[in-house]
């Protein structure tokens, strides 16, 4: 006679105050033994009503709200918002300002990917060391931001048509020092982690998503490229001066947790290439249009505009509606962090408890942007 261990489904509440949920995310997970059989994500613990708040602020004041959406990608948020404002108001940006904001947003992309990779490895159980390695590099980038605009996280650096302040003299040598140091550090990451047997066995083949599934679920960014879809808005729909720089789009075909990790590591190298090119192409000049052309109190004509960029997490879009007054009539954010969670249930069901937070971390979300 064979004896079978009887298991009963058990429902566990994870979060919102859980250190592995990257903020205040909550999941109601049903387990059968160690296997996940159902997941219900619950959002909203960081909802601050940013879109409503934007309706009471001037176009320039809204920049501060965008900083606080994805707070590890503030420069990128600023950029997406500014592109929408410029499209709405018909502002012609100043070239030096555009180059500066491209440099800033590529630096931010590296910083954001460092956070994503560091925490992913942390979730895998490599406690402390890899995270501190990535945080150390991110810290140097944040120091550069401090030189650019005085802030490290909530930058508010961009303005309609450019940036509010030119980079100081000492910024350029400091940036070059950081860019020289970064590639060996990324190689270190590669040596320690990308070829690591434990990482292989824990991440390969876990939470696989197919390109068809992801397109259907509007998933964009590194997740989509990790399944072999060559879709990068910087390449396919170049905004700012991305059509003047060349870069590769690292693609992986597996669509699993390892592929998502790998794509992010490789993208950091491409960002360094882009910054080097920007540095060569940037020319002296004004960093934002004259005040007479673009006043602080913008009053865009009645109408609407949607602008999207390739954020470190996916397609970040701003949909702005103007009624001709000094505040946006409506400001909608197409948040990649929220939309990339659409398939969370599909990713997790059938996987093990130990892989849950790894898969969740590989989506790379930021609760500030999920809940807004």
């Amino acid at each position: 006679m064979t004896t079978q261990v009887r298991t009963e489904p058990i429902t566990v509440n994870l979060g919102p105050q859980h250190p592995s949920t990257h903020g205040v995310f909550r999941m109601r997970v049903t387990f059968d033994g160690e296997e996940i059989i159902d997941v219900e994500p619950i959002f909203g613990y960081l909802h601050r009503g940013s879109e409503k708040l934007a309706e009471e602020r001037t176009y320039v004041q809204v920049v501060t709200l965008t900083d606080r959406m994805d707070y590890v990608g503030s420069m990128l948020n600023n950029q997406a918002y500014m592109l929408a404002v410029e499209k709405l108001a018909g502002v012609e940006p100043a070239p030096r300002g555009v180059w500066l904001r491209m440099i800033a947003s590529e630096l931010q992309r590296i910083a954001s990917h460092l956070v994503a990779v560091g925490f992913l490895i942390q979730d895998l159980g490599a406690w402390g060391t890899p995270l501190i390695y990535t945080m150390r590099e991110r810290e140097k980038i944040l120091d550069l931001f401090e030189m650019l605009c005085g802030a490290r996280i909530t930058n508010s650096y961009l303005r309609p048509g450019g940036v509010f302040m030119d980079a100081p003299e000492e910024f350029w040598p400091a940036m070059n020092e950081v860019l020289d140091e970064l590639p060996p550090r990324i190689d270190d990451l590669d040596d320690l982690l990308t070829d690591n047997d434990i990482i292989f066995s824990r991440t390969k083949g876990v939470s696989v998503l197919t390109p068809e599934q992801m397109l259907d679920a509007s998933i964009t960014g590194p997740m989509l490229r990790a399944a072999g879809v060559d879709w990068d808005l910087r390449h396919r729909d170049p905004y700012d001066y991305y059509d003047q720089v060349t870069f590769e789009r690292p693609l992986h075909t597996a669509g699993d947790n390892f592929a998502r990790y790998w794509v992010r590591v490789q993208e950091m190298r491409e960002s360094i290439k882009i910054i080097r090119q920007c540095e060569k192409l940037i020319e002296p000049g004004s960093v934002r249009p004259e005040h007479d052309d673009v006043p602080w109190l913008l009053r865009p004509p009645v109408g609407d505009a949607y602008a999207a960029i390739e954020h470190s997490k996916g397609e970040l879009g701003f949909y702005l509606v103007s009624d001709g007054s000094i505040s946006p009539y409506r400001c909608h954010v197409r948040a990649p962090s929220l939309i990339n969670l659409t398939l969370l249930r599909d990713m997790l069901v059938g996987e093990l408890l130990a892989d849950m937070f790894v898969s969740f971390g590989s989506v790379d979300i930021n609760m500030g942007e999920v809940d807004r």
Partner: protein
Amino acid sequence: MSKAWDGAKLADAIRESLPDAIVDAGGTDVWIKPDSVPDVMRLLRDDAEFRFELLSSVTAVDYISYFEVVYHLTSLTRNATAVVKSKVGFGREEACIPSVVDIWRGADLQEREVWDLMGIIFDGHPNHKRIMLWEGFPGHPLRKDFATYEQSIVPESERRVPSALAGEIGDGQG
């Protein structure tokens, strides 16, 4: 560069298959009837001329006299974008539009967000619940008649009445 579909051209192209769906077109936008949303969206996704595999964004705007649901579509194969809009809830009646979740699953969380914050019912959504706020929250905050000023630190005399509430959209006074 991505090609943005011209509104009039897109309307003509849709009219070939679905003659009654179009209400209006202008700029890069096409306005369609709420009832024909599933048919038009299925056509835009599957027809070889359009191939809009990716639903970029679903959102809604409160224009006081009606609500406008806005869909931003992206085609990877054709590297093109399109904007499809639909007006619902005229005269601030209950606003309802068919859900597109069975066409693009990406609409799932976004439609729930629009219902939660703007109060538009998506008919046929498999999990039609609030997402950011809790069940039982009074009202839908992104509607223009939702009062946000009670907690405001600005004195009442200095508060700026949204031009929309005064019924004068676009008076430019701000």
